[in-house]
Each structure stands twice: as C-alpha cells, then as structure tokens.
C-alpha cells in the first residue's frame, strides 16, 4: 500500500486518463500511501472469509463476538495513544488487575469505580514520571511497573479473587442496554469515538503524531512534549483501568492474575492495525480493525473447539508476523539484503 509509484506508471496514466482524472488518482494514491491500516484490513478480510465458510455461528451469535472484540480492543485503544508517541506501556496488564482489585475492595460500587479509574490515572502518571522526568526508557520502566503492580495486585487481594459486594450491579451490567449491545461494547465504542476525535480533530491530539514522528522537531516547534507524554500514559492507564472495571463487573469478582493474555492480544491488535512501534504513524481505526480480526479469530477458534494453548500460538505468531512485516522493519530488512547484493556486485566488478 505504501509503495511509491514509478514515474513511468504515472506518465502512462496521464496519457490514458487525462488531467482531471489524474488529479483524482493521485489524490487517491496519496491517501492510500498515508493510511496504515492495509495489513489489518487484509487480515480482517481473510479471517471474515474463512470464518464465514468454516464457522458461521461466530456471526449469528454476534453478542459473544462483539464482547470479545471489546475486551481486546479497549486496552489496545489506550496503548495506541502511547505507541503513537514512540513509547510503550507494558504495564497495562497489571493496571487492569490492580484497578479491578481496588474496585472490588471498596464496598460502594460507584466509589469503587471512581477509585479504580483514579488508580489507572495515577499509574499512568507514575509511568510518565519515570519516562519523562527521570528519563528511563519506557520499555524497561513500564516492564518494571508490570512486575511491581502484579505484585501489588497479589498483596491487595491476598492472592485470592475478590468478590464484588454488590452482585446485582454486576448482573445488571451484563444485560443489553441498546438493542443487543451490552454496556461493555457501548463503552468500547464510546472510547473509540472519543479517541478518534481527540487524535484526528483536536490540536493536542494531533501533536501526539508530531511527538512520535520526530521528537526533536516537536520540541523545537514548541509543542509541550512532556505534557503530551503525561497525557498519553494517563490515557493508557485510564483505559486499562476501565477495562479492569468492566471485567470485574462482568465476572462479579476481581481476579488478581487477570491480564496475561490481554497484554499479548492488545499489542497484537494495535500493531496489526498498523500503529508503527517507532511512533508517528497509525490510527485508532487501525486498532479497531486489528481488534475485530483478532476477536473474530479467537471466537472462531473457541467455537471450533481449539484449545487455549493453540490459540496462544496463533495470536503469538500473528503478533510476530505483524512486527516483522511492519513497513519500516520490512524496508530495513530489504535494504540490508539489497546492500549485501550491491556490495557483492561491486566486489565482483572490482575483481
């Protein structure tokens, strides 16, 4: 999708289509080159086609499928904001677990939700503090937080699942509110719309791309980079905490070990969706596409009786392939191969 057209091709098209059409074709080509969702869309189409033939029940029982998509996608949406700035937040899995435990430990349900969301914001701010103020690499800082917070979840919960005091709230939460849509899916859609508007229509959101694309240039242009990074990590922490709240409500208990596979699946969703790990490129729309394809795949595998172990292998392989086929990485690998060929040719020419 991102290959640059050769001048010859453009010329033939000029002759064939005339000037007006060329304007449109070029515009289309520029738009396509700007988009990053190509791989995600290809995977989604493949998954949908194969599933439609082999396991059509995935689409007829769409409530299950949508719930799974929302589970994977919500955390991935928050991650997208951080990855766009060229950073990583590995602590989301533990944030989810800790905020769930915090929520279940508070007797009142609304106070619990508020406390859990505040926990998420606090963890996000702490991550940002280590990355921005102290200057630690975000991979290692959030990895340390991942382990420390997992420990915290165990300590707070006494290493046992914590039951929700108000079970009825949990049951009410599982019921559909808008037609067949459950609150979980509704919250996911709302989070998606909010982030989409923030990242594409608002100035501070647009600046996330600048921070990820070229940080030095962003500093020089007067963008408050530190504040943007605090915002990004806090969005990620908040969204992960929201996912923890939703999980706890649906299961009517908080599981301190929650989040292991969420980490893998949410990263996979964002990266398949074309969010470039080095920052600056990507979209929440891509993340949505990635979450859709992974969710449908997971439900299809579950429905056809595939073990969880093999599902892990599937998603792990998809993530590995997604990272490798990241356009910049692929270009680096191709350039390496080409360079070695060129040097060989040169050596032969000299000899």
């Amino acid at each position, binding site marked *: 999708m991102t290959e640059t057209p050769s001048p010859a091709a453009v010329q033939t098209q000029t002759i064939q289509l005339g000037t007006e059409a060329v304007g449109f074709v070029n515009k289309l080509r520029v738009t396509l080159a700007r988009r990053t969702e190509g791989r995600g869309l290809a995977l989604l189409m493949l998954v949908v086609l194969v599933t439609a033939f082999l396991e059509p029940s995935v689409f007829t029982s769409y409530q299950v499928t949508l719930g799974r998509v929302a589970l994977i996608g919500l955390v991935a949406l928050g991650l997208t904001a951080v990855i766009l700035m*060229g950073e*990583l937040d590995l602590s989301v899995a533990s944030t989810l677990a800790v905020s769930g435990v915090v929520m279940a430990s508070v007797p009142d349900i609304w106070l619990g939700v508020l406390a859990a969301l505040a926990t998420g914001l606090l963890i996000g701010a702490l991550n940002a503090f*280590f*990355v*921005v*103020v*102290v*200057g*630690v*690499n975000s*991979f*290692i*800082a959030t*990895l*340390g*937080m*991942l*382990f*420390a*917070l*997992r*420990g*915290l*979840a*165990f*300590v707070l919960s006494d*290493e046992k699942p914590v039951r929700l005091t108000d079970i009825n709230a949990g049951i009410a939460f599982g019921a559909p509110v808008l037609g067949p849509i459950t609150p979980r899916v509704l919250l996911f859609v709302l989070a998606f719309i909010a982030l989409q508007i923030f990242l594409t229509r608002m100035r501070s959101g647009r600046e996330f791309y600048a921070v990820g694309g070229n*940080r*030095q240039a962003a*500093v020089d242009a007067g963008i408050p*980079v*530190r504040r943007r*990074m605090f915002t990004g990590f806090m969005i990620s922490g908040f969204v992960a905490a929201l996912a923890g709240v939703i999980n706890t409500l649906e299961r009517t208990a908080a599981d*301190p070990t929650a989040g292991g*596979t969420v*980490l*893998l699946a949410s*990263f*996979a969703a964002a*990266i398949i969706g074309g969010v470039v*790990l*080095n920052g600056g490129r990507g979209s929440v729309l891509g993340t949505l596409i990635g979450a859709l394809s992974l969710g449908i795949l997971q439900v299809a595998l579950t429905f056809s009786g595939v*073990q969880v*172990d*093999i599902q*892990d*292998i599937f*998603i*792990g*392989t998809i*993530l*590995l392939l997604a*990272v*490798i086929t*990241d356009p*910049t*990485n692929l270009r*680096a*690998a191709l350039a*390496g191969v080409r360079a070695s060929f060129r040097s060989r040719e040169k050596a032969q020419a000299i000899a």
Partner: protein
Amino acid sequence: MAEKESLTELIAIAEGGSHNSGLEKKRFNFLAWVSERGIVVFTVVLILFAVIFVNGFASLPNITDVFYRAAPIGIVAVGMTFVVISANYLDLSVVAQVATAAVIFIGVSNNYGLLASFAVALLVALLYGAVNGVAVGYFKANAVIVTLSTTFIGLGLLRWISGGSIFFGPEDGPIRLFGQIKLGPVPLSAFVLLVITIILWWVLTRTNFGFTVRAYGSNKEATRLAGVNTGLVVIGAFVITALSAMVAGFVLAAFSNTAVSAMADGYDFRALAAIIIGGTSVFGGRGSVLRTLLGVIFVSVLTNILVLSGIGFGFQQMAIGALIVAAVSVDALARRAAKK
C-alpha cells in the same frame, strides 16, 4: 530501529554535553558512583544484614538452598546480559526456553536416553535464538514485542505437546544424580554457574564477537558503518541467551527431578533485575557478566530474606519490580548528570 533516546537524553545531547570518561570529570557524582560500584557495597551490606538480623539465614541447609535457587536464574541472567548489552532491552522468552529445556531433558531422556534429550534441547535452543535473533537483527523489530510473542508461541507449543502434565525423572537417573552432588554446602549447579560465567566473561571481553556486541550496544550505526554484520551480532547475542537458558533448564530439572511447563515463571524479571541491579546499562554498550553474577547474588539473598521472614509472593514481586525501576532510574539520572 530509530533512536529510542528519551526526551531528557535528547535535550542533554542537544545541549552538547561531554561523556563521562573519568578523566575530564573530577566532581564526585553520587548517582554515577551508585550505578557503577553500588552493587558491591549493597551486596555486602545485605549479606551482613541477613547474617546478623535474619533468623536462619546463616545455616548450612539455607545457604545450600540459596545456591540451588540462584544457579538457574544466574545462568539465565549471565546469558541474557549479552542481549541487554547489545541494547535490545531483554529476552522475555527465557521463561518459555527454560521450561521447554527442562521438560525436554526429563521427558525425552525418560524414553530415548540422555544424549537424545541433549540433542533435542540444543536444537530447540538454537531455534529460539535464531527466530528471536533474525526478527530483531535483520527485521529490526522491537525485541520486547518479538520475545513477548515467542514466549506465548513457545509456552503454547510446550503445553500443547506435553499436555500440561508433570514429568518425573527416575530416582536413580543421571539427571537426579547431577542434582544431588554437593561439595560441602555448595551444589554442583553453582559450579556450573561459575564456569558459564567465566566462559561468557571471556567471550564478552576477550573475543572479537564480544567486542562487536559491546560496540553495537553503544552505537548501532557506527558499528554497521565499520563493516560489521550487525544482524549476525544480534543473532549471536540471542543464541548465547538461548544456550544459557538450555543449561539453566537442565540445572532446574536436576534440582527437583521434575519438569512442568510453568516451572520457569518469573525468570524473565528475576534475571532482568539481576542484570540491571548489577550495573549493566539498559541503554546498551556498558556492562559485564561479573556484575550480573553479583546482581544474581543480591537478588537471591534478598528473595531468601523475604521468604525467611514469611513475606508472601506478591510482596516479593513488588519489591523486585520496584528494584528494577529504581536501578534503571539511578542509571538514567547518573547518565544525565554525567552529560551536564
């Protein structure tokens, strides 16, 4: 991969600072001192503290136990030091690698003999090293994400093939025998750790390959321009990690004479904690295998103190996670102070 320097680093570079190479810097820098030499003092203080205040630490059975538990983590950590020094953060998939090796050593040797199990384990280790190394070295993919996915692939395969069952070795088998040999209070596995540390120390400091690993860690682009095949360097670092993880799997299997797919959980961050607390920089280029050995002693003694004091698993994990963040913060602050 593009420069992943943090914002503060960039600003420091933009301000044009000099490097901390000792000669031009006379002012005493406490943070730099902590990140350079702190580990020796901390380890000594911690051991002294344990001997004086912790009930039951200074007993022979407990010291043997510390050695038993430190050996496999230590072997993983000294191997993983290569990945950290080559500025690739860490190899999360050691969790899967150690467990896979342990299951292979017990499961395969039960049916086909020890030699066959060594061959299979070696093959699997090379495969892990090659997949991680090619993805990170040639495709320039992020090491954390690559090894996260290979962890899930590896553990999934292991659980699927082994059926999630526990494997027991025979009571009189060679693996059991290896696990039982002790010289005084020191088990044989501790000597394995020592030998591997010495070998890897030699590789890192005295060979061409070790030099290129350190060079690649401090400046990737310069190393590439100097004509080094950087992809091979990264593959080498991951293969060394995988081979160490294989040996660690053997030692771990010999310790308990059993193997199960979840037996190496937590090895990734314990090993990382040992490496970072030892003073190897996550920014790459700086570090040593001997430092990692000290870090392993520190982490193992600390864990032992926590266990002896009856502190639960959750708090241990919290403490070690916090130590990682603290050690990295000290390193980052020291670098920034040095550049001013």
